[in-house]
């Protein structure tokens, strides 16, 4: 990776206000000169952004409008974008159509939370080892971890299925948690390592000189300082676990009570006509919490995404 992009990721990875503030002031002073757009440039930029956001948001807008339409109106022609006498009825009916819906939403959060805790417990020591200690084979090991990222769970599905079966974990939460966590560990190691490398080495050495053990140094000196980085990887891991829970849940679990939301939503399919309005309503209730999260934690997400994309 280039020095430029690396410094970009590092400066965004801190995501700290004190770094952003001077940049903003500087940008403002230059804006008067370089960034002055003519009126047609402004129109062009907004038109471009509008087009881009329509593509990104269209399914959400349509999904929301569908959730407001009664089923009879959904299955009628000609197509009407705006619901006529739309109501929030589907948001009440859905709990009856798929009785386990509440449980599915809970499962999604439960599985993602356990994955996040496991990943942090495994990643923090590993990232510290890669950030601080130079031992033979460190580079190769780091490379091997990163290569894991390149293989998806879908390719390894057959042996994973056999593994889960022989461990007796099929149709349990663990069948979704254990493989789910594995594919989130490598990028988190990379991300936290980048963060830890910026904590001055002198702190470790000072603690060592004062007679602190290595483990004590990690727990009492490094961990508190690494907290912002740990927060970033927690959010990234949670979002990753939350967004990608499908294939393992589809293949390794057939018990309704353990299904996370994406698979649980199939409950709306197995009837004569798919209850699209309730399906969309259920989706919106399920994704509302993450939507709130991205508004408030947007900066951490950007930091995690830019540093998380593997670079060397």
């Amino acid at each position: 990776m280039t020095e430029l992009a690396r410094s970009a990721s590092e400066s965004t990875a801190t995501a700290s206000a004190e770094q952003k503030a001077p940049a903003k002031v500087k940008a403002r002073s230059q804006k008067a000169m370089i960034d002055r757009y003519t009126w047609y440039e402004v129109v062009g930029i907004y038109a471009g952004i509008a087009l881009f956001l329509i593509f990104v948001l269209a399914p959400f807008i349509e999904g929301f409008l569908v959730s407001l339409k009664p089923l009879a109106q959904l299955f009628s022609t000609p197509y009407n974008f705006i619901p006529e006498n739309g109501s929030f009825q589907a948001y009440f009916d859905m709990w009856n159509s798929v009785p386990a819906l509440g449980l599915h939403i809970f499962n999604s959060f439960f599985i993602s939370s356990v994955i996040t805790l496991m990943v942090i417990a495994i990643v923090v020591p590993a990232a510290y080892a890669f950030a601080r200690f130079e031992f033979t084979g460190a580079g190769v090991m780091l490379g091997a971890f990163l290569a894991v990222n390149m293989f998806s769970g879908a390719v390894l599905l057959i042996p994973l299925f056999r593994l889960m079966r022989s461990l007796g974990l099929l149709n349990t939460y663990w069948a979704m948690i254990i493989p789910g966590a594995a594919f989130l560990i490598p990028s988190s190691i990379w991300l936290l390592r980048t963060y830890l490398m910026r904590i001055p080495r002198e702190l470790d050495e000072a603690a060592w000189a004062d007679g602190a053990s290595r483990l004590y140094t990690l727990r009492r000196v490094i961990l508190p300082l690494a907290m912002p980085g740990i927060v970033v990887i927690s959010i990234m891991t949670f979002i990753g676990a939350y967004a990608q829970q499908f294939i393992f849940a589809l293949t390794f679990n057939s018990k309704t009570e353990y299904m996370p939301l994406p698979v649980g939503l199939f409950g709306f399919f197995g009837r004569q006509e798919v209850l699209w309005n309730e399906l969309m309503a259920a989706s919106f209730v399920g994704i509302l919490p993450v939507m709130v999260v991205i508004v408030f934690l947007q900066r951490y997400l950007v930091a995690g995404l830019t540093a998380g994309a593997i670079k060397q």
Partner: protein
Amino acid sequence: MTRSQSATLFALGLLLPATLYILAIVAYPLFDTIVLSFTNAALRPTYDFIGWENYERIFSAGNFTEVIIRTFVWTFFSVALKMIIGTCGAVLLNAAVPGQTVFRILTMPPWVVPMAIGIFMWGWMYNGQFGMISGLLQNFGLRDSPLPFLAYGNTAFWATIVTDVWIGVPMVTIYLLAALQSIPKDLYEAAWTDGAGRWYRFRRVTLPLMVPAMLTMSLLSLIATFNSFDIIWILTQGGPSGSTTTMIIDTYRTAIGSFRYGEGAARAVVICIFVSLFCIVYFRAVRQLSKGQIR
């Protein structure tokens, strides 16, 4: 024991949980895939080694090369569109206009929402009789009959690509946006002082400095797209008549769908070989790029 030796031991100790975990959940299954690919494993508990038979079968069946080619075509268009739309998005969101922060937040939903849910929404939009896209095309008089996108091979192929692009664009956009913002402002000032116009600055300052980030991102999204499963499985399950069957879908159908684990493993091994090749290219490229910068 010297200090450096104990440090190494301590570091290895710290790495132990992560290493064991990855060995058990990724490395062992990878090894098991290779072993299985030489057996006739199926639902029954025992199986025999049958040598290269699985490989001979999948390559002589004829449609496997077709699947490989289709996977590459699908991946190529998907990655190309992601990069084009993502670059445009990043450049637009980098423009200093009011509302920047809000626009950036609005870019993220497809990436943070459970993939399956976004795909369900697309599935309904592609519906021929009642879906939005076909409906709007008819409302605006661009078509006079319903167009069920997922029912024809040709349209289903592109429909799955568009959905894949939709899911991948936010990540590309935000990553490239960060790269754009890391370009030193002085360069623009210098060019501006020399009288360079906006378009000239974009072509001669922005684009060249974006190339490394764009290359990294396209290789990363190449690997992710190549492994894409959820989208095609939910939308078409590989159909109609195999026109959206990529290698991953093909493997899943053979192994989980018809319980031919051995043959499925052989197909998975072929995927792993391609992915490893991409990996090598990626690590090479990344090393080359960082060297180029030092010089």
